[in-house]
């Protein structure tokens, strides 16, 4: 059975129909073709499918697609603005927080949900906010550093592939 729903996806209104038993992840990846959101386990444990629904980070594999009717959904594809990377994306690249990159979209979405609610989180607040996102490559250290740098207002610029912090507003907390 299919159902038609209306919601906002990456700030654009959308009307789409999908089977009622589909998860949000299936809708995003398989019907809408936005493959930036990953499915590492499809059982709510790894966080690679994290998207933001009405300001909260959720595992899209654990939410029914029809439940986003009337809501606002942000995926990793919605982070860039006019071709300009989001500060979190720049910081992840600059700090080397991306290795295989498979957890990155989910990490970015959990980090964005955190910073939107708490613009200058401490290291322990970052750890807690990302505790549902597994990473097998980085040991998390550089991901923490990247989020802290955005919290501290660091602005990066790139020269021949090397990113430098050109401006730091505040020192990182902790």
């Amino acid at each position: 059975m299919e159902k038609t729903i209306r919601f906002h996806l990456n700030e654009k209104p959308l009307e789409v129909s999908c089977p009622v038993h589909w998860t949000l992840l299936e809708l995003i990846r398989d019907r809408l073709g936005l493959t930036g959101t990953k499915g590492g386990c499809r059982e709510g444990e790894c966080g690679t499918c994290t998207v933001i629904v009405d300001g909260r980070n959720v595992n899209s594999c654990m939410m029914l697609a029809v439940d986003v009717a009337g809501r606002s959904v942000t995926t990793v594809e919605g982070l860039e603005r006019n071709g300009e990377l989001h500060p979190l994306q720049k910081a992840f690249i600059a700090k080397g927080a991306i290795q295989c990159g498979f957890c990155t979209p989910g990490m970015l979405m959990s980090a964005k949900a955190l910073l939107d609610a708490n613009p200058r989180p401490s290291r322990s607040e970052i750890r807690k906010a990302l505790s549902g996102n597994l990473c097998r490559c980085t040991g998390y250290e550089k991901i923490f550093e990247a989020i802290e740098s955005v919290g501290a207002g660091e602005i990066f610029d790139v020269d021949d592939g090397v990113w430098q912090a050109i401006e730091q507003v505040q020192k990182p907390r902790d």
Partner: protein
Amino acid sequence: MSQKPYSLAGKRHEKLEARQKATGRLKYTGDIRLPDMLHCRILRSPHANAIVKSVDTTEAMKVPGVVDIITYDDVPKILSMHQFLHVPEVMYYDSYLLERHVRHVGDRVAAVAAESIEAAEEALRKVVVDYEVLPAAVTMEQALAGEAPRIHEEARRGTDLVEIEGNVFEKVDVSIGDVERGFAEADYVIERSYNTSKPNPAPMERACVVCAPRSDGRLDVWATAQGIHAMRMNIAHSLGVPVSHLNCHRMFLGGSFGAHIHTGFIENICAFLAFRTGRPVRGEKTREEMFLAYGRHPMKVTVKAGFKKDGTMTALHSDTTDDTGSYAFSGSSKMMLTSGFTLSMYKCPNLRMTGRSIYTNTPPLSAMRGAGNPQASWAVESLMDEAAEALGIDPIALRLRNNLGVGDTFYGQGPKVISTIRSCGTPELLEKGSRLIGWEKRGNGYAPYPDRPWIRRGIGMARGFHTSGCGSEKPNRFIMDFSGAFIKMNEDGTAQLMNAAADCGGGNISTYATLIAETIGLRYSDVIVNGGDTDTTPFDGVTHASRGLYGAGQPVVACAEDIRQQLLEWASRAFRCGPEDLEIHQGRVYRHFKPEDSMTVSEVVLLGQARGWGNIMAHSTVRPTACPPHFVVIFLEVEVDTRTGRVDVTRAISGVDTGTIINRNNVEGQAAGGLHMGLGFGLMEDTLFDAATGRPLNANFADYKMLTTLDMPPVEIVFADTFEPTGPLGSKAIGEGVTNPVAPAVANAIYNACGVRIRDLPCTPERVFREIKKARI
């Protein structure tokens, strides 16, 4: 060696694909969708050991959307192997695409290709299988018991049929020197047994393959593979088709850690179904299937070592029992490596390794970050601390006394892979790390919190290494290790690399850009690395054994040097001078002492084109003649809750000897990530199977625990200032060494904290608590 004359190496370059990963635009294998694509699902055995008496697919074929179903009767009867990195004559050919005798819970009975995953899964439920269930040997002890069921009735080693005694398929007994004399000369002899667990590599990306028939009758394959040429060999062999009928594409991997060094059935099955149906076929493992397909070999390692009173090691004998699971994906190589690594940990004149590899009715295992070395490190580095205490020598001093360093013979990937060590940062790292952690001030059973005296703090360390690839001074008959590369110059002054080495996330593809830019004199952004496929690249070994930069980088540098000479020669014609009067810097050719005479590399290429000088291009194939160990020293501080056995790691120092650093972000990330995986091995990671039925007990991320952001300690990284003369720009590897010694450092720290010695991995709260309780009685 300190100041290295490089302008790009050592910086924090953005990985070439980092933006695509940060924006979600990079297509991993699982993101590929083709028109008319079918979905494959595999019917898996619920029994650990059974004969498939019959398979009835009548009802399953009626499910709407089902296009094809195959069983044992349909697949080629070609006994196959699954790795192509050791020489074929030492590899085991012991499986078909689908089996009549299923040997573990999750083994392959039938495969369905359907228009949708739902239809394929519906069909799986309607296939009727009649099994004759046999007794199973799930544990090592069961498999070695006299009355154990026979797991394999036929297997070949290379071209020879193998006599499988019980379930032991290979044994080894190698001596170097005279161990009996060595033990006789010792003042102190220690013998201990250590057991390791069965962690899963658990890359975040699930294994996936898409096979698409081409209009020329061949097949395109996109898959999560650590080596596209190896995968092409494996698929072609098991299907009985010429290798050139397949074109395998290099994909960025969402991690792998050894999971994808072998071609694990789903690839071959989808290729077979694509040939049969003439349509693209996609297969993707579920997370449970990931847990039923990969893992580090559990081993029982007994080490006997003899020491003089001053700590000098006189003899070492290791005995290893290795469980490969139901198929010998790696042959006996993991046992050979664990045994071999125990011998190459320290300098000792009298060495003996004995061991056996066995089949059990559990999922087939292959590599996981370290390939036999984590097991060897667990045994030897635990033993060194036990011996140090008995000898009354500081653990660091005992290690330094027997340090294997520059000029010493190194048995790399087993005793047949012999080279000489040319760089070693161990002493420097021991010194730096011990100072940083406060080694001298460490206590025994220190209780740091007066209000919580049950919390005991301890400091422990371990040192180790892994090889950089598998090269040996003379070619060996054990493992293949060579790489190839092509580079061409484009008219806009960019250099374009065509090679095949996979990037599992470590960033080696980007390091090739640094090597090329540094060597030719280009900007980093002037280098393009093609995606590449087996049609357009030369053979390259699998990205394993930490060889991505060290091994695959060597022909890249050779090509770049060749290109540089060609550019200088053309530019010298333009400037009417000798090539020795010129240099290339940031994409521009300058004349010494006449900097106003300069032209861009692009202008040089265009000039040659207009004059009909031809192409600037280079090719190279290199067999590395060494596999230099990248040494690692780990220091940990732990707090043990003696009421519960819970262990918290509160400080972690990873000391790394990686030679020249090519991309600082990459090596720091590897060090922290390797520590993460090592702590998982030390503290919690293990796949469990019911000993009676062989059913998995924790084949999901809810029950299989790895360190989350809340568990991971802060990581301090120190580097040794070394230069590896055989490596690209002086570099050596990093990927596996950073994991290998972590688990014994955990156990050594626990011992320092609360006086209990854990010899079986992982050091779970239950195990630690049990030992604490035992020690109190």
